[in-house]
């Protein structure tokens, strides 16, 4: 086998993080198909956006070594971690405002303008 032990250790670390990331994405996709309602699917999809993406990017950071690529990958990870919860929140709001049958799925809090006829 060619390559120093240090390079093989780096490869093993890369492979471990990559496999963890792949398993996270598989769990996220399975969760999206397993649940029946969009709100639960949003929760399952968050696994892919956070853990899956972070593991894959960490694997590639280890493989890239110390250089410009490392900081670019850190920038991608930081951006996705900041914007993915916002996207999820907006998707929940879209569901709240466009579903006329919301009360049959969710237990909605009583609001001040409501009477008992709801």
């Amino acid at each position, binding site marked *: 086998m060619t390559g120093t032990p240090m390079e093989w250790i780096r490869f093993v670390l890369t492979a471990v993080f990559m496999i963890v990331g792949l398993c996270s994405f598989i769990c996220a996709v399975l969760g*999206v198909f397993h649940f029946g309602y969009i709100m639960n699917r949003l929760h399952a999809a968050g696994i892919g956006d956070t853990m899956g993406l972070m593991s894959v990017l960490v694997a590639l950071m280890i493989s890239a070594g110390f250089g410009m690529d490392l900081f670019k990958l850190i920038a991608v990870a930081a951006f996705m971690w900041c914007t993915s919860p916002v996207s999820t929140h907006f998707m929940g709001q879209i569901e709240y405002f466009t579903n006329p049958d919301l009360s049959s799925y969710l237990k909605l809090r009583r609001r001040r303008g409501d*009477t008992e006829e709801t």
Partner: protein
Amino acid sequence: MSIETAYNILYMGSLIIFAILIGVMLVRSVIGPRITDRILSVNMIGTMIICCIVILSRYLDEGYLVDVALIYAMISFVSVLIYASTYIPARPGRRPLDGRKKTRRKGDRRNDAYDPYEESEEPGPVYAGREAEEAPWAREAWRRQTGRMPAAAVSPEKESIRNDSSNEFGNDFTDGIKKGVKKDFKKDNRSGSAGFGSGFTKVPKGGRQ
């Protein structure tokens, strides 16, 4: 086996698995019964494509592909924002399509803000200000026609209305002013941010899909 071969096998295997996952999410975007399922699947496909691009950047040893992945992440985020701005109404009196109109009380003026989900009626002339006391017949006619008080009939500066203790015009606005309490109109209107409810406990009616 050399290091490069091992890395190539790892990257190729990851790319193949990601391609399979993207195809599976495409199925969800086709069969998803609601619009939000499709938006979610497109967002997840975008995340997986970002992973594919950064893996490709290491596989081909091209550093600029990471910049492409960053721009793609921004575009996918902005696309979800545009979907949201299309479907979420941006008016102060906004509320969901939940049929909450049925729960309006008579004389409840809180929902008099413009509501895009309500069909627009022909309002006719509004008698407000000084004319409001001189023409109570017009106010009564409006109330009979539309079933609610005219929106501009009450002004807090009017002495006569402030001292008016008749119950048929009773609404929270003048009551609050009589008691000297400032009423925050905006806070009472339904806005979307407080509305998620207490939990996702129910299974949809058809059972699990």
